[in-house]
């Protein structure tokens, strides 16, 4: 068992004081420690935004890349070294907006990666524009008469695509969130955890407004029932419902055929093929041998 201390670093945190992102950071560290992982086992990948700065604030490997492109980078890392526990920690603007296409295809591809999406329903770093999850009608800096477009219901989309693990957490409940992250990391295949992360600077409601609304998924819900999960997620009144909506362990993971053939050894840059292997393939370009 490793301890949370292993993951502590002393990098000054750029988030607003009191931001619920701190709760997500706590939950991530707690989950990694709870899983018995060491910093050397973990690679965090993020895009751009306030949420995407998270990998800097704990000890681990990380790749803080371009806006919207965390998932393909994480997919490449996972393909090259499946021993690494790879997680994406980024915001909904990054993952549902700029990089939405990659998320849809991650559902198809199914890499064993955990996605933790900080959903503050806002573009915070660029000062309060609407995001893909902003409720319709909310006044935003580019929508002075209210946002016209409907918010995206990505958890429903994920369940519809059979994403192996689909959950919602609450940043102000790091204990429960770390439990979801631990289960998600262990779960074979892609896991999506959307986290309600109220924005204390640009948000429209005080934190207590969220605390009053967040509630657990009913204990009677069967998370292996895709249709039941979908019907829960299609009800707007359930948008503050937290817990695991859907679990599916029947999907073929990304790279399975390759790994069955070659094992789970990392693809190493220092491995050059023997001259003979190249020559063998080159020989197929020789003309048909004479009889």
């Amino acid at each position: 068992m490793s301890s949370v201390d292993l993951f502590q670093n002393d990098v000054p945190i750029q988030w607003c004081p009191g931001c619920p992102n701190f709760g997500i950071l706590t939950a991530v560290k707690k989950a990694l420690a709870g899983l018995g992982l060491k910093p050397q086992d973990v690679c965090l990948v993020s895009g751009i935004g306030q949420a995407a700065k998270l990998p800097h604030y704990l000890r681990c490997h990380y790749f803080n890349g371009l806006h919207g492109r965390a998932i393909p980078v994480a997919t490449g890392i996972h393909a090259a070294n499946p021993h690494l526990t790879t997680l994406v920690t980024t915001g909904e603007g990054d993952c549902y907006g700029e990089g939405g296409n990659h998320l849809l295809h991650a559902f198809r591809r199914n890499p064993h990666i955990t996605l933790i999406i900080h959903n503050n329903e806002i573009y915070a770093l660029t000062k309060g524009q609407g995001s893909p999850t902003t409720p319709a009608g909310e006044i935003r800096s580019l929508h002075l008469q209210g946002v016209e477009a409907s918010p995206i219901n990505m958890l429903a989309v994920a369940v519809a695509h059979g994403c192996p693990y689909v959950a919602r957490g609450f940043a102000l409940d790091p204990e429960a969130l770390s439990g979801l992250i631990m289960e998600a990391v262990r779960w074979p295949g892609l896991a999506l955890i959307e986290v309600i992360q109220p924005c204390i600077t640009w948000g429209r409601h005080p934190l207590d407004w969220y605390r009053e609304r967040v509630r657990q998924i009913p204990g009677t819900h069967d998370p292996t029932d895709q249709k039941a999960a979908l019907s829960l997620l299609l009800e707007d009144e359930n948008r503050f419902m937290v817990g695991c909506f859907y679990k599916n362990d029947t999907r073929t993971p990304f790279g399975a055929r390759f790994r069955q053939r070659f094992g789970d050894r990392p693809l190493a840059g220092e491995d050059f093929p023997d001259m003979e292997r190249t020559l063998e393939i080159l020989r197929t370009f020789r003309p048909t041998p004479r009889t």
Partner: protein
Amino acid sequence: MECTIVIAGSAGEGIQTIGDVLADTLAAQGYGVFTWQEYESRIRGGQNSYTIRVSESPVNAPTMEADIFLFLNSESLEKYRPRIKPHAILLGETPAGEDSLVVPFKEMARSVLGRSIYANTIAMGALTAVLGVEQETLERVLAEEFAAKGDEVVRANHKAAALGFDHAHRACRDRCPWAFPKTEKTYYLISGNEALALGAFHGGCRFIAAYPMTPSTGIITFLAKHWEETGVFCEQAEDEIAAVNMALGASFAGARAMTATSGGGFALMVEAISLSGMTEVPVVIVLAQRPGPATGLPTRTAQGDLLFAVHAGHGEFPKAVLAASDAQDAFHTMCRAFHLADQFQIPVIVLSDQLLADSRFSVENFHLESAVRHSFAPDPNDFQEYKRYAFTETGVSPRLYPGRGPHLVTADSDEHDEWGHITEDLAVTAPSMHAKRLRKQVFLQQEMRAPFSYRTEDAEDIFCTWGSTKGAALEAVDALRREGARVGLMHWSELWPPPSASFPRKARLWTVENNGTGQWASLMALGYGRGAEKRILRSDGLPLTADDIRRAYHELG
């Protein structure tokens, strides 16, 4: 003896199969074979051509004009008439003037073999006879081509080939001067895309992600076909942005990684090229050029993206731009690309184009022993404390892989400190990090290979070329020399940053390029302070030939 055979027909009529089998047959006879293709962007219909140039030793350069012209429909005869030499043999189902050799392929296939599907094999037999090649060699190639379909199919194809051969042999009499009897020579016959892919494998590539885009698709197609032999992880990405970012992820984790695309897809990758520059994660990108702008001429050739490649990516950071000129060079250029990418932790762009991608080249020896293969991975145990972006004299910081030792490895697209954490320290850290990255450019430039010079010692005029125009330019130099002109060639395979080059002092420089603006001339001016006095350009989607260059030299000289 040399001969150019042009096979023309609609997409779906089988010119690709006829061309490939005939090229294989000539290669099996022991001749140098070069093929190139031009085709419309459609699955069926249109008019396309497959050109085969056969000679005693390899001349890997395109020719336009046919000595033998096989047409599969009458429209193709009309379209390609300008590409038929006077007194060429016109081989087709219908009469086409005094030089025509009529072989009713489809009718023979139906009446003798009962199925019109054998018409193309009858045509192959006829071409073999016209070329003076032993029927037995074609039979051997056909046996291999159709082996998977069973003995019966092979036997039927042999019968069809014999029908075409006998018919053409009788009709030819003394009208066909060609003879390509067996020789003892053997050459590899390999396309540019295949050589690029195989070179990548040999250079240590273990991961490719790509989105299909003509004319680059053949690279991942080849690697996907051979993944079990090579252990190269191949992934078809949802778009080019995903492709290059996946490659960066795999590279960060320790795999030599690449992607391949054409101009439009490359445009989507540009932000990630800048990311590679900033994070110092190596990546190799093949940019197979076709004429733009936008969708342009999707299946045609061009060298129009050179300046785009050199300037790709926002911000200032070092990158290398290489260009492959033929199959052998493509193989070694890919090894070099991975080497430079890894050595300097930079993006390396390899320029190809449709001519190189789709053409098949004859190569005597790939000289694998001279391929550059060297690992730059340090031993993690050599570090007490590891800083991914440690300041060094060369600007290159030792690069460990995550999960392969006790140290933590980081990558950050923000300006960062030595540990890879975001910095806004404008006084020291940010400018030092910027300078560190730019320092790599100085050492990279010293590593770039000088251009290849040919017959430049006494030259008054020097053709300056890069990429796939090399073969045509070399051939033009020899042709012009035979006419008494003092011309030479300087050819760059490694373009940017510009390697050191010594230009003969008094010679006039000519840029010879498959584009409309002379992009290499602009870079020569920028890199060497030497402008090109003359330009030989072609930008209609077709490749430059030695004849084009020779004619332009006379007109402009």
